[in-house]
């Protein structure tokens, strides 16, 4: 029942971003990640920030939901910022907090690094919010396809990913079931010393592993019975297609990046 939350938090929608080919999305994010590190002026950062916010808005997903989704990383961002404040000793001393000097350079660096970090996370989370896990898998398979030449088992990897995705909810339900059964046999998962809590996990993990193996075995048999014999000669139902929309996105993205380079110091 709580499984919908787990599956990469995909939010169904019909926006421009939703409809892009997942390969376009993944490649653009890849380039974005690289180019963020080229920004070095206030204006170049401002451009990237505004661009990211516009993209986020265009997904038509509630901003509050996106922000909530980022909660776990706020901590990391603040942590990075603080470390920079403490470690960097450039520029002039601006303040003293409890006798500890805060340098202007530290503030600037801390801020820019945190902002980069924030933009990276925001951008990648937009990918998972607007793309189903299975689309991402397809895209990865397609993007990695050239690596087949060096014997990388691309098809198998993609299949493994999609099967894992398929079984996450099933295993979640199973975990819930087994932990309840063991709780009924007197296991206390919530209190006690660290040692006893670690021990309490064993009656949960062993059955989970055993069942996962059994499932894998049965699934393999079912797949074989349905004629699965590797990637050779297979057709695909789901088809990825680069369309006008994707070219448009690429052009737009290139313009923004070009702008960013112009605004660099």
């Amino acid at each position, binding site marked *: *029942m*709580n499984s*919908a*939350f787990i599956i990469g938090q995909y939010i169904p929608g019909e926006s421009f971003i939703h409809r892009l080919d997942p390969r376009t999305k993944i490649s653009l994010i890849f380039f974005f990640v690289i180019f963020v590190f080229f920004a070095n002026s206030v204006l170049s950062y401002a451009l990237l920030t505004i661009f990211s916010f516009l993209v986020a808005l265009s997904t038509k997903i509630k901003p509050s939901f996106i922000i909530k989704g980022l909660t776990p990383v706020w901590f990391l961002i603040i942590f990075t910022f603080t470390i920079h404040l403490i470690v960097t000793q450039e520029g002039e001393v601006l303040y003293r907090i409890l006798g500890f000097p805060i340098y202007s350079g530290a503030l600037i660096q801390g801020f820019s690094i945190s902002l980069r970090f924030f933009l990276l996370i925001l951008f990648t989370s937009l990918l998972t919010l607007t793309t189903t896990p299975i689309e991402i898998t397809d895209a990865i398979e397609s993007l990695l396809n050239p690596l087949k030449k060096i014997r990388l088992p691309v098809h198998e990897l993609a299949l493994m990913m999609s099967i894992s995705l398929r079984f996450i909810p099933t295993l979640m339900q*199973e975990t819930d*079931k*087994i932990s*309840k*059964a*063991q*709780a*009924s*046999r*007197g*296991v*206390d998962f919530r209190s006690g010393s660290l040692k006893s809590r670690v021990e309490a996990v*064993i*009656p949960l993990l*062993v*059955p989970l592993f*055993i*069942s996962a193996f059994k499932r894998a075995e049965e699934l393999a048999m079912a797949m074989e019975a349905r004629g699965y014999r590797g990637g050779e000669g297979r057709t695909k139902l789901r088809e990825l297609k680069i369309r006008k929309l994707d070219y448009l996105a690429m052009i737009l993205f290139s313009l923004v990046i070009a702008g960013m380079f112009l605004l660099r110091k």
Partner: protein
Amino acid sequence: MDISFENVDYIYQPNSPFQFQALKNLSFEIKSGEFVAIVGHTGSGKSTVIQHLNGLLRPTHGKTKIGDFTLTSDHKPKDMKSLREQVGIVFQYPEHQLFEETVEKDISFGPANFGVATEQIKERVKTSIEAVGISTDLLNRSPFELSGGQMRRVAIAGVLAVEPKVLVLDEPTAGLDPKGRKEIMNMFYRLHKEKGLTTILVTHHMEDALKFSDKVIVLEKGTKYLEGSVQEVFSNQARLNKVQLDIPEILTVVKEINNRFGLSIDYQGQSLDELAVQVSVGLKGLKKHE
């Protein structure tokens, strides 16, 4: 132990997009020593009810009482462990919870968690494994080397070894063949009688409900649809059929014979042979009148 549900609502993941109300204003009572069958379709709320019986879940609204333990949304008993010791649950496919290296260790797991003395555990392991009809020779074997049916029995022994006063059985015979099914059900019934247990059987098998229980509760969409003695509930064929539940086959057979030949045989749990005599006498009686 007496058990009661008073106006129980249970809502999964309240205030979220996935909110789902599993129980709606459910009330019933089970007296100490009764054998009660709870029947209903998948999704009727049966498994949610089960989880209320040992405090795995607490009502969102309303109150559950299990013996001296009272549970509400904002009150949970301090001694939850003691509640779980007294209410043993055999979940569906209980063999999925086995994890120890040996059968003996797995059966000891429950009693050890509840702080039973080592000496006593040994004894309980022995009595419970005998109760489920497995040879003590298997105690040192790994449970995973056993057949499916044996694993089921070992898992059940693990629950029995805690010596609960209330035994909750969730489809305990699912997936077993007819012979295994009969043996397991007869064993539970024997324990129920011998130890004076309160037994709650959740089942799709109307035959089992008919054969073993004093009382039947029918759940439908999280509410109580019917409740009463076996006779009362199963005389409501139309209402049961309305929610796609059947009455036990033997009752249908008797009813059909009565209708066809204008007899009035009453089914009160008699054996097939006794019924055969009644039918044979009934048919002869008809001849005389003609």
